[in-house]
């Protein structure tokens, strides 16, 4: 049984459904991420799990028990707020001890566990400081310590890294991963940064306008997006309109208007003959899956087309080429610069050939 079960939950503000019939199931020990653009309802879901909002319909079950009648203070769930929400009149140690005090633990127990947690979040030397004497990263760790000290079943984190600068943020990401592994608490993490979500999570739910678009492991989400929104939101992708010619068991043949026929991997969830020929949609392929060559290299591939380099972006580790195809499409190709001098190979205006393997890319049903 899943630790947390969200079943057909809807939450409205006035007429507007901020969360629209969402169902999720989160396993114990998971690092689960809610990812989506601003305003898609991520915070609203977290607040419903924490108990600050009640769902208008649907159920939230923790260990199989409906939480509807449980107030926030009785839920074995802790939140790390985006603003950290530390108690300004209490020292770091008092902040961390607060949940234990509220649980009426024995004083020596409180002392012992507070000290352990201080060590865990590497703040032992700051125990007697007040929150306003700490840096952003340190405040962040106090918030984490306070949330973890009483071993909650579930930890909710609402964009906890958004306020940190890039370097500190990467540091905290690594720290979060090891902390989660160490304490074994289930994390529900909210972010609108797809790179952060990919780097941290066991599974990600991509949300759009109050709905869940896809729930998958990071590599699946990146490699096999199931909708245009997900494909577009996660990383970079080339998207072209396409029509099914034949969807067979081992492969799919697609027609790209103005370009010709391509072979694509089988469409996920479609059994042989399950997808009617003529079905419209889009073919999506990642820039790093697109090969580029003068004549030879790419032409060996099953799917290959002539084009002209219109733009290039040297980024150090890689170079991004924008190649103009015969039908007016602009395709992005990404080449690693691992070989010395690699970046010089193609220039703007060069006629090249681009291509990709028959098992690369995905067909997205319209």
């Amino acid at each position, binding site marked *: 049984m899943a630790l947390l079960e969200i079943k057909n939950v809807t939450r409205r503000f006035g007429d507007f459904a901020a969360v629209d019939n969402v169902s999720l199931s989160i396993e114990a020990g998971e690092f689960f991420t809610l990812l989506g653009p601003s305003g898609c309802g991520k915070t609203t879901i977290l607040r419903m799990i*924490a*108990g*600050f909002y009640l769902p208008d319909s649907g159920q939230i079950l923790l260990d199989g028990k409906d939480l509807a009648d449980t*107030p*926030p*203070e*009785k839920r074995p*769930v*802790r*939140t790390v*707020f*985006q*603003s950290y*929400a*530390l*108690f*300004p*009149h209490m020292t770091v140690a008092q902040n961390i001890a*607060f*949940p234990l*005090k*509220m*649980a009426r633990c024995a004083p020596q127990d409180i002392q012992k566990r507070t000290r352990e947690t201080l060590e865990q979040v590497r703040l032992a030397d700051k125990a007697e400081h007040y929150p306003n004497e700490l840096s952003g990263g340190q405040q962040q760790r106090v918030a984490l310590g*306070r949330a973890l000290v*009483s071993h909650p079943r579930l930890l909710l984190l609402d964009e906890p890294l958004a306020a940190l600068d890039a370097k500190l943020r990467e540091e905290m990401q690594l720290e979060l991963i090891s902390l989660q592994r160490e304490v074994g608490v289930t994390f529900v993490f909210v972010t609108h940064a797809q790179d952060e979500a990919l780097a941290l999570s066991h599974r990600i739910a991509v949300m759009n306008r109050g709905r869940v678009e896809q729930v998958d492991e990071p590599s699946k989400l990146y490699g096999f997006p199931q909708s245009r929104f997900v494909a577009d939101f996660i990383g970079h992708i080339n998207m072209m309109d396409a029509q099914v010619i034949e969807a067979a068991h081992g492969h799919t043949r697609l027609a790209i208007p103005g370009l010709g026929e391509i072979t694509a991997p089988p469409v996920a969830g479609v059994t042989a003959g399950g997808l009617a020929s003529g079905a419209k949609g889009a073919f999506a392929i990642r820039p790093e899956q697109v090969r580029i060559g003068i004549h030879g290299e790419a032409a060996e591939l099953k799917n290959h087309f002539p084009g002209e380099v219109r733009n290039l972006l040297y980024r150090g580790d890689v170079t991004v080429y924008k190649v103009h195809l015969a039908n007016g499409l602009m395709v992005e190709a990404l080449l690693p610069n691992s070989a010395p001098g690699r970046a010089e190979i193609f220039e703007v205006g060069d006629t090249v050939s681009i291509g990709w393997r028959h098992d690369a890319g995905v067909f997205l049903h319209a």
Partner: protein
Amino acid sequence: MRKEAGRRGMGLWVAALAVYAFLYLPLLIVVIYSFNDSRLNAEWVGFTWHWYDVLLHDEDMLAAAGNSLLIALTSSLMTTILGTMAGIAMHRYRLKALTFMVMTPVAMPEILLGVSLLLFFIQILNLTLGMVSIILAHITFSIGFVAIVVRTSLAGMDESIFEAARDCGASPWRTFRHITFPLILPSVVAGGLMAFTLSIDDFVITFFTAGVGVSTLPLRIYSMIKIAVTPEVNAVSTLLMLLTLALIVLASRIAPSVLRFKT
């Protein structure tokens, strides 16, 4: 260019000094003449503690001072409790009508408030005027001050702190006890001190609601002045001034933001 700015700065300084002189010179003169060895306030004769001695043996004056202290203590205590509750309610429910009702007595002309309270006590409550009616009147006009101070301090706080407390397992009551109350305490104390000073030197409203039996310090001073202004009045004024100043300093120490409000 620099010279121009300098000259304008000079003008501002002179104007400011004049204004401060206008505000503080009369007070200073009152203090100085409380040490004047003469029955009249007309000319300086010599230094003496005499009038403070007279003051300490003036039974009526001491009784009035006692009343004033009792009234100020009781009413400011009640005001602090009620005003804090009102401030929290104003912050939490954001009801326009609530704010309006709490704030009206603050803005109302004192004479109007005095008259209406008098009529209310006599005609509606059938109350004999005295200590109780004065205390009730003082609570009425000072509640709003405490409420604003408390509400302003709450408005400056991050709302998620209170949610974090609930999240950490604190019931609404324990959230108030461990988080909200300690955080607003400086404002509550400062508001209480403000209510105390407002009460101890109030004249108009006290005048209407005191009746015949009870006198307070401001009322007593007024009735003395009607006869003759002796330096005893200066002496009692000086002491009152000292007390008020001490309270203001205390209030500003506890909550520096308080001095930004009008009193």
